Every structure is written in structure tokens, then in C-alpha cells.
């Protein structure tokens, strides 16, 4: 190979990566890490409704001042480009053409007996009402007897004095935000602009679920930044104070950065959506590759020709692990595998083919770690092995899984309190997703569950339309009107006052067509997705439970999180994600086992009789981690971090078991010291990079830190105290 070839290949790869990099494919959308199963699909559908991005504005207390403040806020909001539609004053009546056309069909028809006595009594009542009523009650000239009752628009108990109200809390202003949770930049811009608008006004409660995404990611980012500074400081300390080699620090930084970038660029090119978690874990795994560097460095590999076979095997074993994990059907794992394969390969390439050109050599004046090797190695290999197996077995019976992803997020108390106020005061707390293959089927299903007040009859099924039309058609309005006019004349009503009464009957349409746009206008949003139609309804959870207790066909247990009936699902975000996480856990565990056994096989072929020694470096850290996790609970981040520890463990196992092989005593001691130093620095680098995350208060980050720290300490413990043979 020509001297410049590796450099050319390096430059070519980086340039290619720059071209392939698609930053828009990076997403913080939590749902993107899940396999698109039924539950996740449902959540995605619910999130795609406009109502998922509602902004709530409220001020405690019902008084004029608060009302005026909200009116002013509404005006202000309306000027913002991302505010689509506001709602505060409910007395503003905009009747759509659909309602005008179908008004009488959508109304409840209450026929009265058509005989003179009855009609006479009703006309007398009308007259008395006009003369004696304490409040002005106008006569509807079209329908003087009030046979048609249209009470669909005002069923909601969310109004007070003609204004939207949040239960007993205060007036409520809602607005639709033109943003999706998936567009982080946009969401953050909207959140920060709105929050700063009301910064001075502490009484105004401003809330949208989108704020969680916006604020938390900002807080997480800041927290990660602080940790990264500490991490960088530690690394500098390591390389300058102990290793005293700034060149290797610089080279290593460039290698890791370029490997992570190349892996990220290729991943965003391959996948439509690359989760931010892929980047986080991928970077962690990449940092593990630093052991290739240190092993070469301390063994003087950069002074001689050829490739270190132990490192090559360690690299290939790790690679094989990821090839197998690639088959896990979950996006995050397959993305992570691709990312890790690219990143590790590129790092390995640089450490093996580019670094020899610089001839790096450990400095003579570096911190003396020879005393490490003098620590008496008392721990028998087999004892540790058996202990680890027993511990894993014990832990696996005692471990408790935590599927609640909310525990991984930043604990945003301020927003949670706001959300609590909104949720507690909203009269209807449970969301239902209704699915149908046609709009008509959707309406049929909505009508089926009308008994729990899920959706009003703003839309009719064809069957219901036919029934209503028939009822109106067979009623003798002509006779009714004749009797009405005759009695009105006798009771001295103005001549011709009722001439227009019930003439609308002739204009009632004989066919019916549901208008999805109008339904949307009235708050019933219908969306179409892959040929299916969906709408949302909110109901009182207690009413669902109450009504369904009698229905023996429905298993009460299923009601909490599943189907209410065919095509009607109760949406509980946390529950649905929990279910998917559960499936993901199970699948991941299965593939982890397969990967583990494949790795064991390779190690066995390579190290043969020293297999137990090498395996200890994987199963002992896992055992200690699992023992810890059996005391707390295990979440998905823990599980991913265990993969990182396995990846690191394989390498150290291979290096440690290859010591002493066919070497003279003096050579063996030098080798052992070099390996010890390489492992010590690798572990320290990994800890500085990712163990430090233990300091974070954010669930997900802390979980990664805790597992990696325990893993690193366990490996270090083995390096220091485990008998080599």
C-alpha cells in the first residue's frame, strides 16, 4: 500500500460523508425509535390531528378583568403567523352552509298531536308567553311550536357567560398552533416566543403539550453540554497530566469526531428518520474504539509493521455482534448497529493504517502505572465465572422492567403543574380514536358510542337520515298550519304573522351528504390516512367505566388501554408506548442472547482454553449491572447501555486472554504492563466520555451513565484482581 493511500481513503470518505449527510433526517421524535406496530400507529395518527397542538391560555378566576385580558391576548395571538384558529367567545355564531342546509334534519323532531284542542292550547301558551314572560322569549316564525329542537351546538359544559371556560378554574382561550412535535426547531421557536410574550404576566397560564418537547429538549441539551465540558476537562487531564502526550489527544479527538460524523452522515443517508438516541448511543459505542488505539500505542505497534491480531479479532467480534443486532426489527437497534459498524470500522481503519505513519510512542515521563500490575491477583477465574452466572440468574428473577418512558425525560415540574391544572379542570379527559373505512362508517361508529356522550349527532348515518326524513315526511304539517292560523286569528294575533310557518318543510333535502370540512369547523376533525378515516372524541373516563360494567361482552380489564369496541380505541399515550416498549424489550433480549452466543463462539475459536477468562470480561460486568438494576428497575436506556459494555468487555477479554501466550517471562511482564496501561486508559477515556453522564438528573442520561460506570468499574476490578491463568 502506498504511503498516501490511507490518507486519500480518509479524505474521500469524509468528503463523501459531507455529501451524503442529511441533517433533516435527524429526529427527536420518540416514536421513531419504535417499530411501527399497532399502538405506535395509533399514537402517530392521534399526533397528526390538529388538536394535538392546541395552546391553552387561562387566568384563574371568573371576572371581567380576566375576560378582558383574555380578549386582548386573543387579539395579540391572532397576529402571530403560527396561530391558526383561536376560540374564546362562544357566542360568536358562524353557521356553516352544511348546518343551514341540514338544520331541521339534524334537529330532534318532537311532533305534537294535530287536533284543534291541542293546537288551541299551544297558541294560547304562545300568547301568554309574549305577554307575561319575565324574559323576552321571541316566537320563531318558522317553527312557532318549537317542534324542532336543535341542541347540538351547546351540549358542552365548557362555557360560562358565553365564553369558553376551564371547569371552575377560569375563562379559557384555546388556539391551534401550526406546528408539529416532530419539527423541533419550529416548536422551540414558537415556545420561546410565546413564553417570552407572557414572561411578565405570571397569572397567565400558558400550556401546550408541545412545550414539553420544546423545553425539555432545550434543558437536556444544556445539561448534556455541561457534562460534555466536564468530560472534556477530564480527558485533557488524562492526556496531559498522566499520559503527557498532547499529540495523541489531538489525533484521537479528530479520529473520534470524524468517525462519528461519517457514521451519522451514512446513517442519515440510509434511514429516513434517525433518532437522536442513535447519535447518543452510537457516539458512546464509538468511544469504546479508543481501546484499539491504546492497545496499539502501548504495545509499540506504531513502531513496527503489521497488524496486531488481537485487536483485529476484537474488532471483528464486535462487528459480528452488530451484524447480528442489525436483524432486530426495531429501528433504533438497526440504526444503532449500522452507526456502530461504520464508526468502529472507520476508527479501526485510522488507528491501524493512519496512526503508524505518525509513529506515536508512549512518553517516558508518563505516569507510572507499573504498580498496578503488582497488585496481587487473587480472584480465581472460575469462581468469578460461577459467581457471575449465579448473580445473573438471581437478578433475572428479581428484575423489574420500567416501561414508562416518561421516567426517562426531564422532570419538568413547572409544565407538569400547568398540565395538571388543565387536565383536572377539563370535563372530558379520555381521548377516543374512531376509525372507519368510509366517512359514513365513521359516523356510524360515533353514533354507536353516542351513549357515553362521545360525539354529538352532528353527522347522520344514511340509515338515521332515512328514518328522520320519513318521520318528517309523514307528519301532516299542512293541517297543523291551518289549525295554527285559525286559532291565531281567534286569539287576535296579527294577520299573516304565521304565514311562513313550516314552509321550510318543502325544502328539507331528500338526500344527505356528510360534509367533513364542516365537521372540522365545528371541532370534529376528520383525517384520512392510507384510505382510512379517523376522528377523535373526548369523553369522561368514569362514564366509559360506568356504561361498560353492564356490557358483559367487553372485558373490563381491556377498557383501560385498549379497544372500547371495534374501531373505537381509548387513547392513553403512556399505556400504548408501554406496550410497544414491552414488545421491544422482549425482542431485544432475544437478539441479545443470539448475539451473545455468537460472540462466545468466536472468542472460543480464538482464545480456546482461555475462554472462561475472556468471558468473565463480559459476564462479570453484566452480573454487577444486573444486580444493581434488580434493586432499582431496568429501563430501555439501561438495556442499550449494556450493549456498550458488552462491546467493550469483548475487547478487554480478548486482550487479557492473549497475554502470556507463548511468551517468555520478561516479555510477558512487559506485555502485561502494556495491556494493563492500554485497558486503564481506555476505561478512563470511556468513563470521561460516558460514565460521567451519571451526574445528570435527566432519567435517560443518568441511566446510561450508571450502567457504563458500573461496567467500567467491574472491568477495572477484573483487570486489577483477576488471576490471569
Amino acid at each position: 500500500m502506498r504511503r498516501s493511500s490511507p490518507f486519500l481513503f480518509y479524505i474521500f470518505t469524509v468528503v463523501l460523508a459531507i455529501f451524503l449527510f442529511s441533517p433533516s433526517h435527524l429526529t427527536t421524535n420518540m416514536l421513531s425509535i419504535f417499530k411501527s406496530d399497532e399502538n405506535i400507529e395509533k399514537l402517530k395518527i392521534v399526533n397528526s390531528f390538529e388538536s394535538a397542538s392546541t395552546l391553552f391560555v387561562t387566568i384563574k378566576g371568573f371576572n371581567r378583568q380576566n375576560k378582558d385580558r383574555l380578549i386582548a391576548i386573543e387579539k395579540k395571538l391572532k397576529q402571530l403567523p403560527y396561530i391558526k384558529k383561536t376560540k374564546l367567545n362562544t357566542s360568536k355564531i358562524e353557521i356553516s352552509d352544511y348546518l343551514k342546509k341540514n338544520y331541521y334534519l339534524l334537529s330532534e323532531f318532537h311532533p305534537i298531536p294535530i287536533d284543534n284542542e291541542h293546537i288551541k292550547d299551544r297558541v294560547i301558551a304562545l300568547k301568554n308567553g309574549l305577554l307575561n314572560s319575565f324574559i323576552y322569549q321571541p316566537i320563531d316564525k318558522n317553527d312557532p311550536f318549537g317542534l324542532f329542537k336543535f341542541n347540538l351546538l351547546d351540549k358542552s359544559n365548557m362555557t360560562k357567560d358565553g365564553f369558553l371556560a376551564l371547569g371552575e378554574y377560569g375563562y379559557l382561550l384555546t388556539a391551534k398552533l401550526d406546528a408539529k412535535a416532530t419539527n423541533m426547531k419550529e416548536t422551540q421557536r414558537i415556545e420561546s416566543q410565546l413564553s417570552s410574550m407572557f414572561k411578565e404576566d405570571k397569572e397567565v397560564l400558558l400550556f401546550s403539550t408541545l412545550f414539553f418537547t420544546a423545553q425539555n429538549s432545550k434543558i437536556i441539551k444544556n445539561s448534556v453540554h455541561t457534562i460534555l465540558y466536564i468530560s472534556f476537562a477530564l480527558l485533557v487531564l488524562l492526556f496531559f497530566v498522566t499520559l503527557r502526550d498532547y499529540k495523541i489527544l489531538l489525533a484521537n479527538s479528530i479520529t473520534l469526531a470524524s468517525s462519528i460524523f461519517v457514521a451519522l452522515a451514512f446513517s442519515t443517508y440510509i434511514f429516513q428518520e434517525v433518532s437522536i438516541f442513535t447519535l447518543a448511543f452510537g457516539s458512546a459505542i464509538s468511544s469504546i474504539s479508543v481501546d484499539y488505539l491504546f492497545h496499539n500505542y502501548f504495545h509499540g505497534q506504531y513502531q513496527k509493521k503489521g497488524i496486531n491480531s488481537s485487536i483485529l479479532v476484537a474488532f471483528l467480534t464486535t462487528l459480528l455482534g452488530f451484524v447480528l443486532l442489525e436483524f432486530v426489527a426495531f429501528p433504533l437497534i438497526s440504526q444503532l448497529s449500522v452507526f456502530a459498524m461504520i464508526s468502529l470500522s472507520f476508527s479501526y481503519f485510522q488507528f491501524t493504517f493512519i496512526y503508524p505513519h505518525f509513529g506515536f510512542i508512549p512518553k517516558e515521563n508518563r505516569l507510572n502505572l507499573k504498580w498496578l500490575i503488582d497488585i496481587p491477583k487473587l480472584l480465581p477465574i472460575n469462581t468469578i465465572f460461577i459467581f457471575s452466572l449465579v448473580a445473573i440468574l438471581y437478578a433475572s428473577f428479581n428484575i423489574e422492567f420500567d416501561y414508562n418512558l416518561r421516567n426517562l425525560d426531564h422532570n419538568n415540574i413547572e409544565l407538569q403543574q400547568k398540565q395538571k391544572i388543565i387536565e383536572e379542570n377539563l370535563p372530558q379527559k379520555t381521548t377516543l380514536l374512531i376509525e372507519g373505512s368510509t366517512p359514513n362508517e365513521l359516523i356510524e361508529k360515533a353514533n354507536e358510542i353516542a351513549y357515553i356522550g362521545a360525539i354529538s349527532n352532528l353527522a347522520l348515518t344514511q340509515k338515521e337520515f332515512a328514518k328522520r326524513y320519513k318521520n318528517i315526511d309523514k307528519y301532516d304539517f299542512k293541517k297543523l298550519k291551518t289549525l295554527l292560523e285559525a286559532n291565531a286569528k281567534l286569539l287576535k294575533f296579527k294577520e299573516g304573522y304565521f304565514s311562513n310557518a313550516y314552509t321550510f318543510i318543502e325544502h328539507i333535502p331528500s338526500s344527505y351528504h356528510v360534509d367533513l370540512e364542516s365537521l372540522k369547523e365545528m371541532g370534529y376533525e376528520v383525517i384520512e390516512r392510507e384510505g382510512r378515516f379517523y376522528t377523535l372524541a373526548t369523553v369522561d373516563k368514569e362514564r366509559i367505566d360506568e356504561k361498560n360494567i353492564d356490557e358483559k361482552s367487553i372485558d373490563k380489564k381491556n377498557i383501560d388501554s385498549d379497544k372500547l369496541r371495534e374501531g373505537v380505541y381509548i387513547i392513553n399515550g403512556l399505556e400504548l408506548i408501554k406496550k410497544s416498549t414491552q414488545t421491544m424489550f422482549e425482542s431485544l433480549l432475544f437478539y441479545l442472547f443470539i448475539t451473545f452466543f455468537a460472540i462466545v463462539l468466536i472468542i472460543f475459536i480464538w482464545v480456546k482454553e482461555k475462554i472462561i477468562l475472556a468471558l468473565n470480561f463480559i459476564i462479570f460486568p453484566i452480573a454487577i449491572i444486573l444486580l444493581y438494576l434488580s434493586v432499582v428497575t431496568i429501563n430501555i436506556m439501561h438495556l442499550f447501555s449494556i450493549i456498550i459494555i458488552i462491546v467493550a468487555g469483548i475487547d478487554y477479554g480478548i486482550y487479557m486472554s492473549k497475554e502470556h501466550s507463548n511468551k517468555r517471562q520478561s516479555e510477558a511482564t512487559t506485555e502485561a504492563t502494556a495491556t494493563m496501561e492500554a485497558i486503564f486508559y481506555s476505561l478512563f477515556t470511556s468513563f470521561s466520555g460516558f460514565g460521567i453522564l451519571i451526574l445528570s438528573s435527566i432519567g435517560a442520561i443518568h441511566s446510561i451513565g450508571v450502567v457504563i460506570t458500573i461496567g467500567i468499574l467491574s472491568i477495572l476490578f477484573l483487570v486489577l484482581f483477576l488471576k490471569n491463568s
Partner: protein
Amino acid sequence: MKLLLKPIFFILFITSSLFCDTVSFKEGKYVEALDIFTYRDGNVSYSDEQTIIKYQDGKIITKKDNNLTVHNKSGELLTTIQLNKRVEISLYFKLTKALFLKDFKSLEENFEIKEFKEKNYLFLPKDNIKNVIEEITLTLNQDETPKEFSINFGNGDIIKIETK
């Protein structure tokens, strides 16, 4: 002395805010269906929490939250109406309150407001309220308090309120 003043001020503040908006009026009603005029006197008081209308014949109408109650002279409850089920009554209350208190801000939502002569305003409905109300006129006194207003309904009825 200072200690005593505080609660007194507090009580004064509370009572004044409760009864600050009491207006006596004469209500005239033209009923087109029967082609007759009726009159009655009363007074109305508004606070943040409730609206109370007392008519000379002893009937008391109280609107609080979404409920409207009517009591007779002897305090007996005659009827209770849930306003979220009777949009038209709710609207009527909202309108008269806004006109009595000259609250143009809340009227702007539903009406286009024109000052056609000094201290004379015309309110033309913007949205579908125009199916029920044709127009409203309002005349103010020199001190800018409402002198009288009339609501012309689509069915020909007219309600005219004169303040006293």
C-alpha cells in the same frame, strides 16, 4: 386606629365593587305578533359573579354562572333555566349587560359599530346573529352613560330600554 382602618377599607372596597353597577330602567316592548306595547320598570345590578334584575312587580331574575333563576315577591323560586341549553336567553343577557355597561369591546365580537350621530350608535350584526337581530341603537347621555337603547329583532319585535 390604623389596625381598624384596614378592615373598614376592605369592607368598603368589597361592597362598592358588588353594587357599583346598579341601573334603574324602564323597559318597553313591542310585540309584533299581537301588535301591542307593554311597559315595566325595574333595576339591574351587575357584578363579576352575577346579574340581578328586579322588576317593580316583585319578580327577581338572577343570573349566576350558567344558571338563571326567577323568584317572586315572596322569595319563592318560580323557575330555573340552564343557560347553556338556551343560547338565545344567554345571548340576550350578554347583549343587555354589554349595552348597560357600555362594553363595546365585547360587542365588537358580534357587531359592527357605527356612530351615526354624536352619542348615537348603531350596531349591525356581523355573524349569524343577524338572523335573530336586525339592529341595535344606543344613545348616550352627556356624561357618556347609556340613555337608552333599542333592540330590533328579526321577527319584528322591539325592546327599548330607557335608563332613569
